[in-house]
C-alpha cells in the first residue's frame, strides 16, 4: 500500500518536472525542473530497491549534469526567456503521435498480460554484486569507458587551454 502511494507521488513529481522543463522558457527554471524530474526518477529507483542506481542517479544527474547545464547556461546570453510566449512548434501534432506510440509500446506487456521478463528477478541489487559484475565480466568494457572518458577530459582541458594562447596571425592561403 505504502509503495503504491509513494509510486504515485514520485511519478507525478517526475512527470510534472519533465513537463515544466519542456515548457519553461526561463532556462534556469527549466534546468531546475529537469533536476526535479531526476529526483523523482531516483525515488522510483529506490522503490525498486535499486539503491545504488538511485544514489548514482542523484550523484551523476543532479550533482554533475545539473551543474554542467547551469555552467552552460551561464555562457548563454539570454537566460530568462519570456514565459508567456507559446513554446509549441508547428510539428506538435506529429510529436504527440510519436509520444503516444512510444507510450503504447511501453504499455504493451501490461496490456497483453505477459509475464514480466525473468532477468529482472535474478538481479541481486546489492552493491557488492554490482561491483563484482563490473570487475569480472565487464572489466574490459569498464576500462574502455574509463579510457574514453579520460581522453574526453584531456581533450576538454586542451580545448579550454587553447583559448588562452595568443592569437595567430591570419596567414593568407
Amino acid at each position, binding site marked *: 500500500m505504502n509503495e503504491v502511494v509513494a509510486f504515485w507521488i514520485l511519478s507525478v513529481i517526475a512527470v510534472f518536472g519533465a513537463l515544466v522543463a519542456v515548457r519553461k522558457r526561463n532556462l534556469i527554471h527549466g534546468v531546475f525542473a529537469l533536476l526535479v524530474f531526476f529526483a523523482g526518477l531516483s525515488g522510483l529507483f529506490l522503490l525498486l530497491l535499486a539503491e545504488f542506481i538511485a544514489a548514482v542517479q542523484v550523484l551523476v544527474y543532479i550533482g554533475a549534469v545539473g551543474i554542467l547545464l547551469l555552467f552552460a547556461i551561464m*555562457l548563454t*546570453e539570454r537566460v530568462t526567456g519570456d514565459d508567456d510566449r507559446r513554446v509549441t512548434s508547428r510539428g506538435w501534432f506529429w510529436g504527440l503521435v510519436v509520444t503516444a506510440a512510444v507510450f503504447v509500446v511501453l504499455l504493451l506487456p501490461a496490456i497483453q498480460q505477459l509475464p514480466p521478463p525473468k532477468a529482472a528477478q535474478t538481479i541481486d541489487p546489492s552493491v557488492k554484486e554490482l561491483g563484482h559484475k563490473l570487475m569480472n565480466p565487464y572489466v574490459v568494457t569498464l576500462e574502455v569507458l574509463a579510457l574514453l572518458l579520460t581522453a574526453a577530459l584531456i581533450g576538454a582541458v586542451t580545448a579550454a587551454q587553447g*583559448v*588562452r594562447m595568443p592569437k595567430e596571425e591570419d596567414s593568407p592561403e
Partner: protein
Amino acid sequence: MSSPTATAPNYELIQQDGLETSLLEVSMGPHHPSTHGVFRMDVKLDGETVVDLQPVFGYLHRNHEKLAENMSYLASMPFTDRLDYFNSMTNNWAYALAAEKLVEIEVPERAEYLRVIMAELTRLVNHISLVGFFINDLGALGTPLLYAFREREKIMDLFEQASGARMMCNYFRFGGLRNDVPEGWLDRTREVVDRFPDFLDEYEKLLCENEIILSRTQGVGCLSRDLAISAGITGPMLRASGVNYDIRKVDQYGIYNRFKFRVPYTDDDVGDCYDRFMIRMLEMRESIEILKQALRDIPGGDIIGKAPKIFKPKPAEAYARVEGPKGELGFYLIADGTPKPYRYRVRPPSLINLTVLRDMCLSQKIADAVVILGSIDIVLGEVDR
C-alpha cells in the same frame, strides 16, 4: 631613472573565439565591509579578475581647508584631529610645526620629548590597527584585529590620561603642549612600552609565518620603485617599494636627531602587500626603541613656550611636514597678518597614496583589490577632508 607612465596601463581582455563574454561591473562601496569607510571602487571584472578600477571618494568631504581659513589658527587644531582619526597626535604635530614656522616659537625641551613620545605611540596605534584591518581584509575573522585593539586600548588609556580624550586628543599647541602629563603617567607609559614587544612577538608568530597570509600577500599589488617615487607615495608604502626615505631622518624635525633608530626598507624592487605589511611590523619595533630612549631622557620643565596671546603671524608662507604613520603629512600655511590663515592646505598622505591604487589592482583578483586597498592604509577622514 626612467620616466614613469602618466597613466596606468590598460588590461587587455582576452577575447575568446566563439564565446562572447561580457565584463561584470561591480560598484564596491560606499557601503562595503572592507573599503575602510565610505569609499567606492567602480570595478570592472572579467570573471574574478579586475580589468578596470576607479576609486570614487568625497563622501566625507567637509572642506576642512575652507573651514580652517575662516577661523583662528588655534581653532583649527581640533579639526586636524579629525583628519586621520587614528593619528590625531601626529596631525596636531604637523600643524603645530607649520604654525611654529610662521612665528618662530621656541618649544621647551620637555614638550619636545613628550611630542616624540606621543607621535611614536600614535605610530604604534596606527600600525597595529592597520595590520589588524589588513588581515581582516584577507578574511580572518577579526582575531588579529581584536588583539591589536586590545593593545591599542592600553595606549588609548595613556592618551586619555594625558589629554582627556582617547582619539580626538587635541593635545598639541603652538609652542608646546596643552598641559603636562599627570603624575605617574611616564611610569605607566614605560610599563606599556616595555611590554609591547611581547605582544609583537605573539603577533608575529600568529601572522608572519602563516602560509595563507604569505601566499595571499606576496606578489600581490606590486609597486615599482620608480612609480612609487613619481607618484609621491610616502611612508611605509614607499619604504616597502625599496626607497629609504624617512622624514624623521631627512628633516629631523623636533628632536629626532637625538634618538638612535633604524629605518626598515626593502632592497628588492617588488613592493607587494607583504612588504608593506612587514615594513609596518618592523617599524613598530623601531618606534619602541625611540620611545624607550625618550622615556629615559625626558627632562622636567615647562610644557609650553612663549607663544603670543593672540596668534597673529606676519605675512609669510610655511610648509611643514612630518612622517606620519601613513606617510608624509604636510601643512601649508599662508599668513596675511590677520588672526586667520589666508590659505591652509593639508597634504594628505592617504589621498596621494591612492594615486596608484588602479595600477596595483589591474589584472589582480577582486579579493586582492580589497587586500591592496587595505595595504595602502587609508583613512577616509583624511582622503576626503
